[in-house]
Structure formats: structure tokens, C-alpha cells
């Protein structure tokens, strides 16, 4: 029985002339929350999109639960228990809240959608999370940024994922909604069954909620420490130092 939920070795990815990832090696243990920080353009989102099956890496191995895999598609990654909250949220504006929450995981009573069941469960999930959306039949287009983000996160959290990838889940959040998402991650951590990789720019929040922190720079992981062994000053210094050095 291995304790590593997800391990990647030597991942590289190029887009034409642009090298997004050179040689990324990282892992996340079962029930662990890993914070991934780095500059804009360091390749964080590309890495997430490789881990969730959206992009294929040019080189490197992905090992899920001790088994090497080639992620063929987002569907395939999902079937292995890897689920993602994208930076752009991947919500469909024209669809209702509950259809978005069950997007591509719809409950069916062939040939029709089980709308009533989905409506009820979506409302329950959001209530459990403490998200205040009075009517789940509303089009997502009519919601605020924070509400949209909460729906995107709720969708992945309630998908029975074993590895959850969160690409800047706090970006569009007000203080209250941000706390809500952080609470949710803490709750997941307490349950211990889900591993989380979270990209964030707010290092205080990262230290607050993560077990371990990795820094991604120029397509490589250049820093790996437990959250308790580092500090806000050290993290800020690491990122800013690079900017100061050439001066």
C-alpha cells in the first residue's frame, strides 16, 4: 500500500517555441494538501492541465496510486479520481446552476435527464458547503464571481475525487467566499481521504491551509518544504529574489 496519491517525474511540455515545463517532479501524499506557488507564466496552469488530462506532456511519467498511467482525456483522468477546478471555472453561462454542477456527470433515467434528483442534490451540496444560492435553477450567467467560483469548487468536491486540483480557487473571491473555500479545504483535509494540489498567490492563505509548499520557477520545482518549516517572509523572498537578482 503506497502513501503517494499522485507522483510525476520529469514532466516537460512545449507549445511550439515556448517551453512551458522543463522537468517537473513532484508528488502529493494521500490526504495531503500541496500548495503550488510561482510567478505568472511559470507553468502552473500548464502543469495542472497535464495532471487533469487536458494536455499531454512531451516527456515524463505520471503515477496515480502507484500505477504509471497515460492520461488520455479529462474523462480518463476523472475515472482515475483526478478532478479539477480550472482557473476559468469551466462553467456554461447558458445552463442552470444544477446542470453546471452535474456537467458531464449528469444523472440519467434513460433517455431523459433526472432533473429533479439533480436539482435536489445540487441544492443539498451547496447548503452543506454554506453557499447561499437561493435557486439552483437560475442560469449561471446571473451569478456573481464568488458564487460562480463556489459552484465550480462544489462541483469537484462532490465528485468523489481522490486527487483534487485547484487552479487559483480564491482568485475571484471576496473575503467571505474565500474563507468558505478555505474551510472546505480544511474540512477535506480532516477527512484525510482526498489529496489536494492548490495554486494560489496569497502566500498567507497557502501557509494557512497547506501541508507542504512547492515553488515552480522556469518550468522546474525549485523549492519543497513543509508549511511548518517555512514562513511568509521566506516564500515572498524566494519569489521576489529572482526579480531583484539581475538589478
Amino acid at each position, binding site marked *: 500500500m503506497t502513501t503517494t496519491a499522485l507522483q510525476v517525474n520529469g514532466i516537460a511540455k512545449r507549445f511550439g517555441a515556448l517551453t512551458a515545463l522543463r522537468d517537473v517532479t513532484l508528488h502529493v501524499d494521500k490526504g495531503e494538501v500541496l500548495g503550488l506557488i510561482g510567478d505568472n507564466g511559470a507553468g502552473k496552469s500548464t502543469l495542472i492541465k497535464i495532471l487533469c488530462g487536458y494536455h499531454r506532456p512531451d516527456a515524463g511519467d505520471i503515477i496515480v496510486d502507484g500505477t504509471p498511467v497515460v492520461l488520455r482525456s479529462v*474523462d480518463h483522468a476523472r475515472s482515475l479520481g483526478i478532478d479539477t477546478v480550472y482557473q476559468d471555472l469551466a462553467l*456554461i453561462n447558458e445552463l442552470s446552476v444544477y446542470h453546471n454542477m452535474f*456537467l458531464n456527470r449528469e444523472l440519467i433515467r434513460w433517455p431523459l*435527464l433526472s432533473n429533479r434528483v439533480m436539482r435536489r442534490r445540487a441544492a443539498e451540496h451547496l447548503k452543506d458547503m454554506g453557499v447561499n444560492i437561493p*435557486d439552483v435553477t*437560475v*442560469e449561471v450567467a446571473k451569478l456573481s464571481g464568488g458564487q460562480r467560483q463556489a459552484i465550480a469548487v462544489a462541483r469537484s468536491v462532490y465528485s468523489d475525487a481522490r486527487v483534487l486540483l485547484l487552479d487559483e480557487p480564491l482568485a475571484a473571491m471576496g473575503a467571505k467566499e474565500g474563507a468558505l473555500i478555505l474551510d472546505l479545504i480544511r474540512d477535506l483535509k480532516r477527512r484525510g481521504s482526498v489529496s489536494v494540489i492548490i495554486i494560489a498567490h496569497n502566500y498567507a492563505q497557502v501557509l494557512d491551509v497547506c501541508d507542504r509548499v512547492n515553488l515552480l520557477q522556469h518550468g522546474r520545482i525549485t523549492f519543497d518544504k513543509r508549511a511548518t518549516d517555512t514562513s511568509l517572509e521566506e516564500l515572498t523572498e524566494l519569489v521576489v529574489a529572482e526579480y531583484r537578482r539581475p538589478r
Partner: protein
Amino acid sequence: MARFADAFLRRREASVLLVALGLMVYFRAVSDVFLTKDNLINIAQATAPTAIVAVGIVLLLVSGEIDLSVGIVAAFAPFLLHFAIDFYNVPALLAFVIALAIAAFIGLINGLIVTKLHVASFVVTLGTFFAVQGLLLITSHAYPVPIPESMKGRFQTWIGAGPWASIIWALIIVAIFHVVLTRTRWGLHTISVGGNPVGATEAGIRASRIKIGNFMITSALGGLVGIMEAARINTIDPNIGGGTTLTFYAISAAVIGGTALAGGSGTVAGAFLGALVLAELQNGFNLIGYSANTIYLILGLAILASMIANQYLSRLRRAGRT
């Protein structure tokens, strides 16, 4: 009562239904024959082909694509039927299935080029339009032929020659695809792919598969309409029963019915009402005694007016309370 009225008016189909009913009242007032049985059959037979093709067009517009070739596929399909029956002795029903399958295959080609080679569907289907037109004129030598003997009788009546046959088919097809678009996974994914292509793919929806499927449905429906029209007029004519007119009518019906060209939203029932409005306009002005040329002008203006009205109404709806 007010709540019912409010709920009704916020349905996308409401405005076009009111227009269809209004036209009915107006033409009944100016012409005694408008609502006679014979004339209703005329209107029904004019509505059905447009409505059936518009069903496919709605699916494509909602998924963010368009098909300009469907009308020429409609013209080609009855010839395929004729070739199969008269040259290869295929039984009529099997030939019918083969013709629809070949029509669907043209849709498959459209879909594959659009999704795999990333060419805009407007351009791709413009290309297929001319290519199929070429095939049609080469194989038919541009001459009309009578419908095959083995097609006559019950098959011909049921498929399109019976006075109410085509409109019944249209209603069945509209009902089925209205449910498909609003109540099934396929419909939900069609909306997703057109509404947010990147997001839908990120959620694991296979956008290519949805789009290719909708191209195939549209082409097959086009083929069906071509065969229905051939059965109705008892002739297979390369120059009528399809081409650009059918395509443009179907797109107009879809848009009048409330389907946005931008993708992500649309209604099949609305497209049926759109086709009804077009048929009413053409039939009604004909009865009043306008010449065919004048009717084109009126039709054009009516289409523009209803599209502008629709744009305005849907903006109001979107801004409305929830």
C-alpha cells in the same frame, strides 16, 4: 393570471407564437379562403420542409456551427433513392435508408473537416454545397425524373404525398428533438459546446463528437425532406425541392424562432413556429394577390423585422428578474 402571462411571455417561443397567431387573424380578415381546409393543407405543406431542416439548423447553431449545404443534400437524396431503386433494384424502403445514410455521411464529412481540420463551418459547408451540387448535376444530367415505380402507393402517401403527411412528420420530428435539446444529455452538451467551447472541453465533454453528430442529424433531415418533397410533387427535380432556398428558409425559421447565431441557446419548437410564420406570410400575401416578386421583398423585410424584434426581446428577457 398576471403570473401566467408573465411566465408565458418569458418563454423564448412566446413572441413568435404571438406573431404566428396575429398573422393568422390578419390574413383571415383580409381573405376568406385563408383558413379553409385546402389552404391549410397548402400552409402545412409549405411549413413542413422548412421546419424539419430548421430542427437540424437549430442543433447546429446552438452548438456554434452552421450548415449551408443541407438544401443541396435535400435535392440530392431523392436521386440517390432513384439510382438505388432503378439502377440497382434495391427495395424502396432499403433504398430510402441508404439515401438517408449517404446524406448523413455528407454531414459526417462536414463535421470531420470542421472539428479535425479546424475550418469554420460556414466555409466548409459552402464548399460541400458546391461539391454536392456538382455531383447532383453530373449524375442527374440536370434532368428531372419521375419517382421510381416501387415508391408509389402506400410509401409515397405516407412519406409525403398524403395531404397531412409532411406536417405530421414535421411535428413528430420537432417534438422528438425539442425533448432531445431540452431534456437529454446530448442536448445539454450541445448547449455547453456552443456556450463555452473551452469550458465544455475542460469538463470532459467531447465537443467534436457532439458537433459531428449534429452535422449528421442535419444532413439526414435534409435528405428526408428532399425525399418527402419528391413524393409530394411526384417528380425528382434537381432544380427544385432544395438548394439555397430551403437552407435560407430554415436558417430564417430558426432565427425568427429565437435561436441565437452565437451559439449556446436556441429552441426547436420556436423554429417550427418560425417556419409556420414564413409559410403564412408567403401564402397570405399570395392570396391577397401580390406578385411573387413583391412577396420576396415583404418576406425579406418581415425576416429582418422579426430578427430585430427577437434580438431586442431576448435582451429584455436576459435582463429580466429571475
